[in-house]
């Protein structure tokens, strides 16, 4: 559906990463366009000038995602992202003081209600219903004091497009594009939001997210499969839970928990802002300083501890669902800046990207065992991740047949070097994708933010390109031998429910 916004985008950046890899020429032209600026509170601001049309796109991200959650509060990064559209003490209200009184009550009643809900069958049903009714009454009262969705309203009036946000495993990002004469409006609005989001209508939004989970996961075979797969592939590392969160946690997470999450991670020193389009840094930087510069610096985010233990043997998951069968399979591997990460991209491309890829030609075109097979680097990039396959068999061929056929290609890579032409084709395509991604303001903003946010320096995109460029046939073979082993593998099957509707 075209209008839906505020969504969970697991692996969005990762997917793009596979498409990146600049030629030296394009890399230089991007570097020439970029001005980097660090505010004294630690916020990084990257400008790229592009004066074609009088518009600009902005994208800013916090280095926080579902990987920073723990059991009980899964989905909080994404939930908070929704709440960031509910306004501030100045935006979205007719009388903030009166609202605060009500919101204290809402927080209290909501917490008590959530406790009953979390007890499940042991909960006091009557008490829960009473608290729900009380909450509804308070929400109705607050509604009279609210200027409904005023962030949307203001940006709509200003001609803004693409107001949206996305949460992934690794990061949360916010975006808006505006006509060039609205730069100050952007600074005011977004500095307000970062400084002080008011979590109004929290328990209504929690209900929206319950529906989001049903719509985008529970009713979507591929997403459900991915959830089952990740849950098995990671036993300790929080890459094992979905970005949208488990239903139980979404159903009972409290306003206070969302607020606490925000305090910990939504600091300027944990934020990167990219501005691309018809902007002149000499005029824009002072405005950015004025609006964003005095947001107080926060503590560094907590140190991340959990390391996924080495996998000791193959893991297999099989579940029934009311849908045609498909499979997901993956192997643990290092992440950027390890060269193995670049090698994985190259191998994935050789195996499954395009009509000339090995698996397309063999499994899809010739043997027609499958209608699609794709590879990826999932679910995030901040921590060691997985080299994955997704495959959709063609009836009457089975998951077992498809798995076996994919594994034959995996084994072949271990014994026969890939050809120079294949390597060159991948590099040509990664270069071209990179250039194509530069044809929109938003595309450039994505490029700039990725490496700065996740790895601390936007220029590392060149490092990635160099790594990809240096991948040899020997590297590919070594990668396959080291990582694509049975004991490092997880396989998940979605099979059609015997008694389906």
């Amino acid at each position, binding site marked *: 559906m075209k209008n839906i916004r505020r969504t969970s985008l697991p692996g969005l950046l990762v997917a793009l990463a596979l498409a990146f890899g600049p030629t030296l020429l394009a890399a230089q032209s991007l570097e020439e366009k970029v001005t980097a600026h660090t505010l004294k509170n630690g916020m990084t601001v990257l400008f790229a000038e592009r004066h074609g049309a009088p518009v600009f796109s902005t994208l800013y991200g916090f280095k926080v995602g579902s990987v920073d959650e723990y059991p009980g509060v899964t989905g909080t990064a994404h939930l908070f992202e929704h709440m960031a559209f509910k306004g501030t003490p100045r935006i979205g209200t007719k009388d903030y003081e009166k609202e605060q009184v009500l919101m204290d009550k809402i927080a209290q009643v909501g917490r008590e209600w959530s406790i009953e809900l979390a007890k499940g069958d042991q909960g006091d049903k009557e008490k829960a219903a009473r608290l729900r009714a009380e909450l509804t009454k308070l929400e109705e009262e607050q509604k009279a004091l609210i200027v409904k969705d005023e962030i949307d309203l203001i940006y709509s009036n200003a001609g803004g497009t693409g107001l949206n946000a996305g949460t992934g495993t690794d990061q949360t990002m916010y975006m808006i594009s505006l006509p060039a004469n609205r730069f100050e409006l952007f600074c*005011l609005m977004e500095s307000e939001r970062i400084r002080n989001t008011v979590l109004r209508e929290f328990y209504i939004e929690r209900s929206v997210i319950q529906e989001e989970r049903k719509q985008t996961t529970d009713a979507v075979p591929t997403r459900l499969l991915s959830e089952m797969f990740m849950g098995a592939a990671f036993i300790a590392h929080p890459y094992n839970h979905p970005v949208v969160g488990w239903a139980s946690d979404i159903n009972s997470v409290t306003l206070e928990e969302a607020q606490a999450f925000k305090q910990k991670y939504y600091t300027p020193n944990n934020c990167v802002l990219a501005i691309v389009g018809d902007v002149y840094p000499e005029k824009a930087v002072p405005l950015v300083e004025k609006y964003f510069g005095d947001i107080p610096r926060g503590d560094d985010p907590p140190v991340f501890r959990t390391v996924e233990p080495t996998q000791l043997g193959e893991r297999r998951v099989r579940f029934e669902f009311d849908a045609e069968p498909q499979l997901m399979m993956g192997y643990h591997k290092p992440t950027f800046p390890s060269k193995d990460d670049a090698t994985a991209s190259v191998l994935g491309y050789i195996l499954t990207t395009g009509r000339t890829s090995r698996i397309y030609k063999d499994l899809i075109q010739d043997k027609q065992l499958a209608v699609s097979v794709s590879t990826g680097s999932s679910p995030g990039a901040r921590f060691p991740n997985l080299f994955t396959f997704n495959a959709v068999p063609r009836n009457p061929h089975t998951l077992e047949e498809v798995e076996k056929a994919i594994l034959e290609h995996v084994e072949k890579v271990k014994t026969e070097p890939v050809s120079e032409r294949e390597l060159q084709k991948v590099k*040509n395509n990664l270069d071209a994708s990179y250039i194509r991604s530069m044809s929109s303001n938003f595309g450039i903003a994505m490029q700039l933010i990725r490496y700065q946010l996740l790895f601390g320096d936007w220029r590392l995109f060149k490092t990635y390109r160099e790594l990809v460029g240096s991948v040899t046939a020997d590297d590919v073979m070594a990668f396959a031998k080291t990582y694509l082993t049975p004991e490092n593998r997880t396989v998940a099957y979605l099979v059609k429910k015997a008694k389906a509707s």
Partner: protein
Amino acid sequence: MKRTTTQVTAAIAFALLILALPVLAQRHPSELGAPPPLSFKMPKPVMFTLANGIRVAYIQDAELPLVWVLGYFRGGSLFEPGDKAGLAQLTATVLRTGGTKARGGDQINEELEFIAATVEAMGGSEYMTVTGSSLKKDFGKLMEIYADLVMNPAFPQDKLDLARNQSLEGMRRMWDRPNQVSNILFQERLYGPDSPYGRRAKPVTLKGIGREDLAAFHKKIFSPSNLMLGVAGDVSADEVKTVLNQVFKGWAKAKVDLPEPAPLTERADGTVYYAYKDTPQANLYLGHLGARRNGPDQYKLEVLNNIFGGGGFTARLMKQLRSDRGLTYGIYGGVMDGRDRGPFMVASQLKAAQFVEALGLIKDIVRDLQTNLVSDEEIETAKNSIINSFVFNFEQKNQVMSQVMTLKLQGYADNYLDTYIDNIRKVTKQDILDAAKKYMDPAKMIIVVVGDEKKFDKPLASVGTVKAIDLKALIEAERGPQK
């Protein structure tokens, strides 16, 4: 903007409290005042016609070393025989994958992919589109392959089988997604299962399509006089002319004669169609026939749609069903236009336990638009949003080109874009009320819902006359006997 005195006072009081900081930044956006004027010159593609009749739109874009090509041939699934539904799409797919008399499909794949170039063909309802892209240095090579494919496709049997098998598997799987199921059932009932607008490809129609059908369909549609071709990118007009004249040399004009599909008639009669599926939400599509494209009320409808269900979170559907009540993650709708008639429709995946309540809210929103004038603020926001975001249509040159091509093909006036903003500005609250009365009728809307009625707040019978659709039987009947 609607600020109250209290708010301003509060803002000032707050500012005074922390005077030591440079707090001027913390204001309400309405305090910023009017923005500086935006100067903007609309980029326009150059149009010219080649000797063999190909109409060309060209726009230069030297920012990146890239070229984009977009070709529209009039003719698509609306013009395929009903018993061969799916022919347009299969023709497009195999045109690309099957290669030409001179170059095999696999060879073309190799040649294009090695230089990171693409050519893709799609069969739409009205147009067959063939797109291409490459690095600037490969423009000549790209067009050589592009022209060979559209002029001399080989349509080999193996690639037809591959395309058909892929489509058949897609048809097996389209029932897996409940929202897709509700859409399929809705389209079919809205337009009629035998209408060119409502029928869809099925296993039985795909199986009856042979190579000769593809070749005949191609012959009927792929003619130079029936092609509008756009080129955008880092190539000069002279280079474009030279290359196009060369690659399309000898392509003979042929008369393209496409019979007009029978006009649509309204079939919607308020029936509720219910298909059981074990899924957590209620998947809804509702509506009846909407508007004809490029009609007299197009600007009124654009503003109406923005207020009703197309304008994101400021639209009434989103505001009332999602933001106020948490009944859905997303809902959109509007009076869409089409070649004959688009749909007036609303689509959403809703909380099952409040589905009937939600349906009531949707109907109330429609009735209110037909009864009361919208507020000043609503119409202002809708018009501001459309007018002020207009400039985004011109961010990318290849976008500009495809937009102008579509407008020309669909018979819009040459000054459509130049007068667009003024036309939106002219829309009044009364216009919106009139359009809502003319184009919406809650009593006539068919309601298609896929889900589990046992989870709903009230029986569907409380909504209207219910006709059940046995999904399992339908799927089995369409698939036919399985191996």
